[in-house]
């Protein structure tokens, strides 16, 4: 493949200046520069400009940039999570209260009681049944 270069191809000239691009086209440009005074002068001028750019050194102050350590936002005490010991104590307390309530209400294994309505029946009489027999013959 034959590469060509024409005067005025600034893109190719810049690529040559910075030594980027295909080696074949760079060889072609190098050959062109030996024959073309205008392009050769152009490249020399750009090289001198690049050289002068190296003199531009910014003042370098002492930089001690540090990222601030992120601090978690303070929560009100009533929203802050409880410490582990307090959570354990609360769990024990809740369990104890539940157990106490269970014991007070009775044996949970006992058979279910009759409905409360049965308790409304009058209790059986404690007096002995007396057979009353009236003799109507004497009347």
């Amino acid at each position: 493949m034959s590469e060509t270069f024409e005067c005025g191809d600034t893109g190719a000239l810049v690529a040559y200046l910075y030594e980027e691009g295909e080696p074949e086209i760079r060889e072609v440009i190098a050959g062109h520069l030996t024959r073309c005074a205008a392009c050769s002068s152009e490249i020399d001028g750009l090289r001198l400009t690049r050289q002068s750019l190296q003199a531009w050194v910014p003042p370098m102050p002492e930089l001690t940039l540090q990222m601030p350590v992120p601090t978690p936002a303070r929560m009100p005490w009533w929203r802050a999570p409880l410490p582990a010991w307090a959570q354990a104590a609360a769990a024990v307390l809740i369990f104890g209260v539940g157990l106490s309530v269970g014991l007070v209400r009775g044996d949970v294994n006992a058979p279910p009681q009759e409905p409360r309505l049965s308790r409304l029946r009058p209790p059986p009489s404690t007096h002995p049944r007396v057979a009353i027999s009236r003799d109507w013959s004497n009347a």
Partner: protein
Amino acid sequence: MTRTDEELVARSRTGDVDSFNQLVVRWERPFYALAYRVLGREEDARDVCQDTFLRAYRALPGFKGQAKFSSWLYRIALNLCRDWIRRQQRAPVSQMPEDMDPAALLAETEPAESIEDLVARRELSAIVAEAMRSLSEEQRTAIILKEYHGMTFQEIADMQGCPLSTVKTRLYQGLSQLRRQLERRGQGVAELVKRT
């Protein structure tokens, strides 16, 4: 042991601030220099540099490593510079201070560099800074990324969001304009370049 950027980024993502601070130490100088050259003022450059790292730190959870960390930082920094220029609406490159303190110059002198050479370097630096001010923001940024940060044409195109051919045009036109500006200064610039 020196950790890679990727390792430090992975640790930073888990909330390790020290790892992120190591990245800051590693990259703060190149990014300060970038911001200074684009904006032209020390205070602005420092602010943009700080802001670049702060934004990166906040955006770390969204950084999935699809690009290099430094490329991602460059993108953030350049966006901030662009915003800064638009917000401030002022000339991007400031004048170098004209008064040169001999004591300060001596402190700056590199080994094997005479005071005369240092003055020449400072003078040329001021001339270049002045000439860079005349470029458009896009031309200036393309030249800065190429000359001082060693990016390829393709990387600059990615940063600037433009075709590769546009990057070459910006570089060529920018360099040509700089060349004209420097040539206007006459033989003095050529002498200064020889000394530096």
